[in-house]
C-alpha cells in the first residue's frame, strides 16, 4: 500500500521524475525490513507461532525483501516503458495494482506460514479483508487526489497540508462508505468480526492517514538524499505502528475465537452431561420432564436423574453459587460426587452429608451449591428426600398443591453437617416439581420477582410434567420479556403407578429364577398368557446373554408394568445390539434354513408390540402383551 500513493504523486509533481538513487532505494528497503521486526516482537502475543521468533522474523524479512525488489523492478520497468516523464494515468496504476496485490498476497502468505491458529482461515479472512479494503480505498483516493492535482497544480510544501486536508475529507466520504459496503455482503466477515468491526475500520483509516502524511511529505521532496532518509525513517516508525496494531488485533481476534469455540465445546459437554428426554421416555410408571436455560454459555445449575438400583430412581436438582465457567466446573464436580454417592449409599441424607464433606475439600474458591435429592421407590411410591439449602419443591397431590418445606441443613461445600431426610408416600398421579431460584427470582422490568405463588398456580393448573415444565418456562419468559438474569432449571415428575423390577446376571442358569419372578408378578393372569410370557422371557433373556454379553458376565433388569396391558422392559449395559434388526422374515424350505433366528421371530409374533432403543450405554427392549381380558374390553 505504501507504494501506491507515493509514486502517482512523484510522476504528477515533477516534470522530470524524482531520481531514486541506488543508495536511497537500499536505505528505504532497509527501513522497511526493520519495520517488520516490531510487529513480531510486540504484536503476535497470543498467536501460536509455528517457528521461533527469530525464524518468524526471518520469514517476514525475506518475503518482504522479495516483494520490495519486485516493486522496485516493476516501478523501474514502468518508468522505462513510459519513456517520457509526463504523468500517464493508464500505465502507472496497473503497475501499482500488480505490486499491491503482490504485497497483500505476501503479507497473507506470511500470516499463514508463520502462525498456526485453530481458526487461521477465519483470521486470514479478516486480515485479508482488512488489507484489500485498504488497498481499494487508497487507490480510489489516489485517483481523486491525482485528478485534483491535474486541475489545480499545487506545488511546494505549503500545498501539502492543503492536500492532506482534502484527502482526509475525501476519506470520510469515500473510504468509510466503501468499507461499510464491502462488509455488508461478506457474511463471514461480519460473523467473525461481530463487535470488532469498528477496530478494523479504525486500522484502515489509520493506514490511510499514514499514506496521506507520507504523500504530503513526499510532495515537498526535491530528491535530495537527506530528505529521502528522513522520509524513510518516518515510514519505518509509522508502518511499525500499523503492523503492530494489525497483529495485535489478529492476536485478540484469534484468542476470542479460541475462547468462544472452547466455550461452545464446554456448553456441549455440559448439555450432553445432563439426562435428556431420551432417558426419560423409557421409564415405567413415572413421567419426567426437564429443562435448563443457562444465561451464559455455561451455567451453574444442574439436574440429574438415574436409577440407584433396580427399583429406586434418584432425582437431583442443584444450583452452584455464581455462574459461568467457574460455576460450571464446580457443577460438574458436584454432579459426579452426588451421583457416585447416591449409587453407593442409596440414601438422600447420606449422599448429601458425604458429598458436602468431599466438596469442602480443596474448595479454595469458596464456592457452594444448594441441592435437593429425592429417591423414589417405583414399586410402592415411597419418596425419601433431603434438602440442602435449596428452594422447596412444589408437590401436587389430590388434596392440593403445596411446598415440601422441610430443610435438612445448609448448602454444600462450606461447613460440616449431618443432614437428615424426610419420607412421604406418593399416591398415583402425584407430581413433584423441582426448580432453581432462577425461576422464582426472575425479574420483570420493575425489578419484582416471579415468585413461588405463580409457580404453585401453574403446577396446580397443569396436568403432566411436560406441560408443567413448558408452562413455567413460558410464563417466566413472558414475565422477564425474555431477558433472563440467572440460570433457570426445572425437573418435574409424576408418579403414575407402581412397577416391579428385578435384576439378574444374564446367564442361562438364571433363566428359571427370572421366569419365576415374572410369573409371580403376573400371577393373576390366565395360563395361556403366562406360557406366552414365559416363552418371551426365555427368548429375550438368552438373546441378551448371547449377544449383549458374549464374553463377559453382565446384568439385565426386567421391569414389569401391568397397569394397563403388560409391558416388560429388559435393560442391559452390554454391547449395543438390536435383536429386531436380525429378523429373518419368511423363509423357504426347512432344509435350507439356518439354525438361528427363530427366537426373534417368536418375540415379534408372540408380542403385541416390541421396541428397541439404545440410550446412554443401555440396550432397552420393551415388549407389550395385551391380555385377552383387555382385548375383549376394548372390543
Amino acid at each position, binding site marked *: 500500500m505504501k507504494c501506491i500513493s507515493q509514486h502517482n504523486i512523484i510522476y504528477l509533481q515533477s516534470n522530470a521524475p524524482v531520481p531514486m538513487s541506488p543508495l536511497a532505494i537500499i536505505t528505504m528497503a532497509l527501513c522497511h525490513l526493520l519495520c517488520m521486526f516490531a510487529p513480531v516482537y510486540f504484536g503476535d502475543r497470543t498467536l501460536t507461532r509455528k517457528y521461533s521468533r527469530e525464524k518468524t522474523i526471518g520469514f517476514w524479512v525475506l518475503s518482504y525483501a522479495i516483494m520490495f525488489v519486485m516493486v522496485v523492478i516493476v516501478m523501474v520497468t514502468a518508468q522505462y516503458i513510459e519513456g517520457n516523464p509526463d504523468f500517464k494515468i493508464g500505465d502507472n496504476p496497473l503497475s501499482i495494482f500488480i505490486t499491491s496485490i503482490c504485497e497483500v498476497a505476501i503479507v497473507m502468505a506470511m500470516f499463514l506460514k508463520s502462525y498456526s491458529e485453530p481458526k487461521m482461515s477465519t483470521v486470514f479472512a479478516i486480515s485479508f479483508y482488512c488489507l484489500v479494503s485498504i488497498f481499494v480505498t487508497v487507490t480510489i483516493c489516489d485517483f481523486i487526489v491525482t485528478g485534483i492535482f491535474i486541475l489545480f497544480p499545487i506545488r511546494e510544501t505549503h500545498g501539502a497540508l492543503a492536500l492532506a486536508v482534502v484527502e482526509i475529507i475525501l476519506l470520510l466520504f469515500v473510504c468509510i462508505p466503501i468499507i461499510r459496503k464491502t462488509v455488508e455482503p461478506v457474511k463471514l466477515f461480519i460473523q467473525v468480526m461481530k463487535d470488532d468491526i469498528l477496530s478494523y475500520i479504525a486500522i484502515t483509516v489509520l493506514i490511510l492517514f499514514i499514506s496521506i502524511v507520507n504523500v504530503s511529505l513526499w510532495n515537498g521532496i526535491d530528491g535530495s538524499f537527506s530528505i529521502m532518509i528522513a522520509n524513510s525513517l518516518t515510514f519505518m516508525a509509522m508502518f511499525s505502528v500499523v503492523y503492530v496494531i494489525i497483529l495485535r488485533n489478529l492476536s485478540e481476534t484469534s484468542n476470542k475465537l479460541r475462547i468462544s469455540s472452547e466455550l461452545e465445546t464446554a456448553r456441549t459437554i455440559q448439555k450432553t452431561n445432563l439426562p435428556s428426554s431420551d432417558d426419560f421416555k423409557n421409564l415405567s410408571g413415572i413421567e419426567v420432564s426437564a429443562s435448563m436455560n443457562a444465561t451464559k454459555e455455561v451455567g451453574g445449575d444442574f439436574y440429574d436423574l438415574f436409577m440407584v438400583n433396580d427399583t429406586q430412581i434418584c432425582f437431583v436438582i442443584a444450583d452452584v453459587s455464581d455462574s459461568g465457567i467457574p460455576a460450571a466446573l464446580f457443577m460438574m464436580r458436584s454432579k459426579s460426587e452426588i451421583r457416585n454417592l447416591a449409587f453407593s449409599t442409596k440414601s438422600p441424607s447420606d449422599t448429601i452429608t458425604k458429598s458436602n464433606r468431599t466438596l469442602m475439600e480443596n474448595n479454595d474458591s469458596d464456592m457452594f451449591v444448594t441441592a435437593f435429592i429425592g429417591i423414589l421407590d417405583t414399586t410402592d411410591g415411597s419418596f425419601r428426600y433431603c434438602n440442602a439449602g435449596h428452594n422447596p419443591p412444589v408437590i401436587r397431590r389430590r388434596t392440593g398443591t403445596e411446598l415440601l418445606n422441610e430443610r435438612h441443613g445448609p448448602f454444600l461445600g462450606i461447613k460440616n453437617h449431618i443432614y437428615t431426610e424426610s419420607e412421604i408416600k406418593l399416591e398415583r398421579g402425584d407430581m413433584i416439581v423441582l426448580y432453581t431460584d432462577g425461576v422464582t427470582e426472575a425479574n420483570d422490568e420493575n425489578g419484582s420477582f416471579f415468585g413461588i405463588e405463580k409457580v404453585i398456580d401453574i403446577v396446580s393448573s397443569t396436568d403432566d410434567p411436560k406441560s408443567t415444565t413448558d408452562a413455567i418456562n413460558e410464563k417466566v419468559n413472558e414475565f422477564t420479556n425474555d431477558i433472563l438474569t440467572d440460570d433457570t432449571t426445572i425437573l418435574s415428575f409424576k408418579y403414575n403407578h407402581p412397577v416391579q423390577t428385578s435384576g439378574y446376571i444374564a446367564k*442361562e442358569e438364571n*433363566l428359571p429364577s427370572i421366569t419365576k419372578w415374572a410369573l409371580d408378578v403376573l400371577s393373576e393372569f390366565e395360563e*395361556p398368557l403366562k*406360557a*406366552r410370557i*414365559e*416363552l418371551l422371557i*426365555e*427368548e429375550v433373556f*438368552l438373546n441378551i446373554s448371547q449377544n449383549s454379553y458374549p464374553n463377559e458376565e453382565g446384568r439385565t433388569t426386567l421391569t414389569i408394568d401391568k397397569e394397563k396391558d403388560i409391558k416388560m422392559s429388559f435393560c442391559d449395559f452390554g454391547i449395543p445390539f438390536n435383536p429386531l434388526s436380525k429378523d429373518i422374515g*419368511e*423363509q423357504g*424350505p*426347512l*432344509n435350507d*434354513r439356518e*439354525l*438361528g433366528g*427363530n*427366537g426373534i*421371530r*417368536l418375540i415379534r*409374533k*408372540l408380542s403385541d408390540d416390541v421396541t428397541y432403543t439404545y440410550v446412554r450405554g443401555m440396550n432397552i427392549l420393551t415388549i407389550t402383551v395385551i391380555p385377552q381380558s383387555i382385548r375383549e374390553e376394548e372390543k
Partner: protein
Amino acid sequence: MKIEAKREGNVVTINVSERLDSATAEDFKTKTIEACGGASSVIINMCDLEYISSAGLRSILSLKKSLANDAVLQIENAHGIVKEVIEISGFNELIR
C-alpha cells in the same frame, strides 16, 4: 423333558414330553440324532409336550438336517402354545 424313541425298520417314532427349551434342547438333539440314524421317516409325537422355545425348534431343525435328503420328518399331536410356536415359526410343513 423325557424322550422315548421307538424304531420299526426305517420308521422312528419319538415321544417327547414336558419342556423342550434351552435347558433340554441339546439333550434332545443328541439323543434323537443318535436314535434316528439311517431312518427314512421320523415322527415326533408332541402329545405330552407342554412347552417349546426357539432352542427346541433349533434342535428339531438340526435333527431334520441330520437325516437323509429324502427322509421325512413329521410332527403330530402338537397343541396349545406348542402348536402356536411351531406354526408362527414356519415349521408347519412338518405338522401332520
